[in-house]
């Protein structure tokens, strides 16, 4: 974690769907270079918040800033250009395109070759294409999907599709990567290698915003955590602080916690570290 100012500022976001208040006045800041976790019970509004940050839906009030630039109100493709990339809770790939091409589509904002150049296939265009292709290969390598580069994305095994989605998100060289439940449906060893990958991302300077149900993963991985419950931010802080917070324990267990355990215990020992609590 660096000492620089926040990369992402979420300010007073509210969003209602019909009569349901999905988010009410949520504010927090994601520091530069952090892995920032967003947790909460089902229906807490995590994914809605994700959709607001990535420009997929517009909030009723409030807004997000990326390093001082306002994201809210910009069309989706602009948000990507400004440096926010995401993955989805339900994998969304271009199934009929190859894994490599999926990554190359993700690079769209970074290449400039115009329509005319593309038709004429100028040297610059060909050089750029070759460079992008090499880079896409490197990204596949990084998430260990390289062996499947030429297969249609839809034919990849589930765990690899998730990793491919991360590679595609990274392809736009984002400043902030938003991962929506990347470990969903993964087994223990897949989850372990995923968390290695996330640590590697952070070490390379990418800030990560992470929604995850696997509390153990979140607590072990994140520098800071925000907890949502029924659309409201009920706690924010380091994993140790959050784990001690009575409001958090109540939200998860539905009962007042009389004996919140000290955070000095190993993560697996705390109430929130119990598998299946999420």
């Amino acid at each position, binding site marked *: 974690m660096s000492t620089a100012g926040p990369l992402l500022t979420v300010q007073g976001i509210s969003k209602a769907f019909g009569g349901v208040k999905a988010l009410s006045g949520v504010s927090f800041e994601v520091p530069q270079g952090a892995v920032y976790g967003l947790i909460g019970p089902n229906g807490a509004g995590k994914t809605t918040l994700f959709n607001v940050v*990535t420009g*997929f839906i517009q909030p009723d009030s409030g807004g997000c800033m990326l390093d001082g630039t306002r994201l809210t109100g910009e*069309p*989706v*493709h602009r948000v*990507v*250009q400004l440096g926010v990339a*995401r993955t989805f809770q339900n994998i*969304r790939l*271009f*199934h*009929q*395109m190859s894994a490599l*091409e999926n990554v*190359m*589509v*993700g690079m*769209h*904002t970074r*290449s400039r*070759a115009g*329509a005319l150049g*593309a*038709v004429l*296939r100028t040297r610059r*265009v060909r050089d*750029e*294409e070759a460079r*992008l292709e090499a880079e896409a290969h490197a990204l596949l390598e990084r998430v260990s999907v390289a062996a499947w580069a030429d297969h249609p994305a839809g034919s990849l095994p589930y765990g690899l599709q998730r990793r491919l989605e991360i590679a*595609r998100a990274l392809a*736009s060289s984002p400043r902030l990567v938003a991962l929506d439940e990347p470990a969903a449906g993964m087994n223990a060893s897949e989850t372990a290698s995923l968390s290695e990958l996330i640590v590697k991302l952070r070490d390379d300077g990418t800030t990560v915003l992470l929604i995850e149900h696997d509390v153990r993963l979140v607590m072990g991985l994140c520098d800071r955590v925000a907890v949502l419950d029924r659309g409201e931010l009920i706690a924010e802080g380091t994993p140790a602080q959050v784990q001690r917070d009575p409001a958090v324990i109540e939200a998860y267990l539905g009962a007042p916690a009389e004996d919140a355990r000290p955070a000095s215990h190993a993560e697996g020992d705390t109430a929130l570290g119990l598998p299946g609590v999420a």
Partner: protein
Amino acid sequence: MLGSIYALVALGYTMVYGILGLINFAHGEVVMIGAMVAISVVLAIGTGGLPAPIVLLAGVAVSIPACMLLGALLERVAYRPLRDAPRLTALITAIGMSIVLQNLAMIAWGRQYLSFPPLLPNEPHAFLGATVTGTQLLIVALTVSLMGALLLLINRTRLGRAMRATSQSPALAGLMGVDVNRIIMLTFMLGSALAAVAGIMIAGYYGQAHYYMGFMLGLKAFTAAVLGGIGNVSGAMLGGLALGVIESLGAGYIGALTGGFLGSHYQDVFAFAVLILVLVFRPSGLLGERVADRA
């Protein structure tokens, strides 16, 4: 020859369908406008002083941008506001735009046939046992190279990748940083440029153009696109060529087959018989697996 023109026009239908799920029935009219603009330019320059190829190129040079502009305008004014409307609404709008363009052309160029000056070589050559003219060879060669270039564009470039991504999921493409509106507009412009070329070819080949010429041509190219599998670019090419061959052979042999009862002026019957047969027996077309996926 005829088939390659169908193929060029069918590409416009199929690209727009692939990306928007819309049958742009005004596409035939774009072909017509392309022909009309080219004729106007050629007549304005006159065939006196300059060599024929230069006059022709001037017509092409004006007609293609004009059609691209028209395609962009159609997309922006007629179709974009209806992007989220039911398909039927957009379809009816397309038919409406087709009628509007026909009538505008009728007002601008009149109801009579405009004749295209004979700028292209028309003396017959023997070629592999058939008789062809220079114009026919030129048309086929040009079509084949345009189709090759289009395939390269779609499969090998950034723009093509963005187009394919948009056709699979516009929302997801947007999340990848693709400006979806821009891609859709470029698709219309690309299709319209091909339509302009097809319009000039027809005008040059038959030596005439007419405000109503886009209607039948559009329907046949649509048939070709359906035959190939609508939404599938290679399918449109194949469908166009196949339809051209079916029509020519059909027109040539219909007299013999019916004992002289029906003549070659029944050639249009074949295109629509093909359309009906395809829709009944193989609605996804020859190469149309993707349409099956979509449903």
